[in-house]
């Protein structure tokens, strides 16, 4: 008979006070999951462009609707936030930015850059095409 060994468990999420880097870590994963399913939109759009005018018009009807625009806006932010947040991980992978003020600065930088770039892309989108 082997008795079940009660090994110590590491404390889970709810034990810790929420910090900025922790929140952004969760958001990084959440935006990654959103982008995973968002790729379907990209695939649908490419397949429609290859299929013909009717299929492409369906995509444009969707991307032109309020819900479609909201999803696209969320997709843009998820992509650009995940990018900026990911660049932050490159710094850490290379061994830089581990001091408390540095990691806070990197994390704030990623958050602000992600939002700024999203707004910038949408301003350009409206200037170029007058919306979708």
């Amino acid at each position, binding site marked *: 008979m082997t008795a079940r060994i009660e090994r110590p468990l590491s404390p889970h999420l709810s034990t810790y006070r929420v910090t900025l880097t922790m929140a952004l870590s969760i958001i990084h*994963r959440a935006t*990654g*999951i959103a*982008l*995973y399913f968002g*790729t*379907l939109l*990209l*695939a649908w759009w*490419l*397949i*429609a*462009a*290859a299929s*013909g*005018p009717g*299929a*492409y*018009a369906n995509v444009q009807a969707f991307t032109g609707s309020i819900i479609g625009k909201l999803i696209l806006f969320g997709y843009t932010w998820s*992509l650009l936030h995940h*990018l900026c947040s*990911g*660049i932050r*991980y*490159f710094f850490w*992978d290379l061994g830089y930015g581990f001091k408390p003020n540095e990691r806070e600065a990197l994390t704030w930088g990623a958050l602000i850059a992600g939002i700024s770039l999203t707004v910038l*892309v949408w301003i*350009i*989108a409206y200037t*170029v*095409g*007058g*919306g*979708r």
Partner: protein
Amino acid sequence: MSGPRSMRTPLGRVRNLGSSHSGTTDFWRQRLTAVAMTLLIVPVIVIILMLIGRNQAGAAQILGSLPIAIILVLFIVASTWHMRIGMQIVIEDYVHNEKIKLASVMANNFFCIAVALASIYAILKLSSGV
């Protein structure tokens, strides 16, 4: 933690990507595809902005041009590979039932490969002008 009969040191056992020599493959590929997408993101966004407001004929013409098709194919390969690894990490973190985990990892692979091949096929079709 080396076995009683092994003379190898713990360091020796994990050198060269670990005991199976492939331990950090996914970690490395995740970074490799991330760097690739960081380089490709600006041209990809420019391409998408170029397509705004165009009809199917206009979009097909732009997507069919060689440099644009190549950039998009590279981006699709990098992104679907990246998301396959990322989702597998998420599954392994949260799904603890072995059978469900196995099925989820398999479905993840199918999904990513299907999205990649469907998108690449569409671009190749646009490039050939059929």
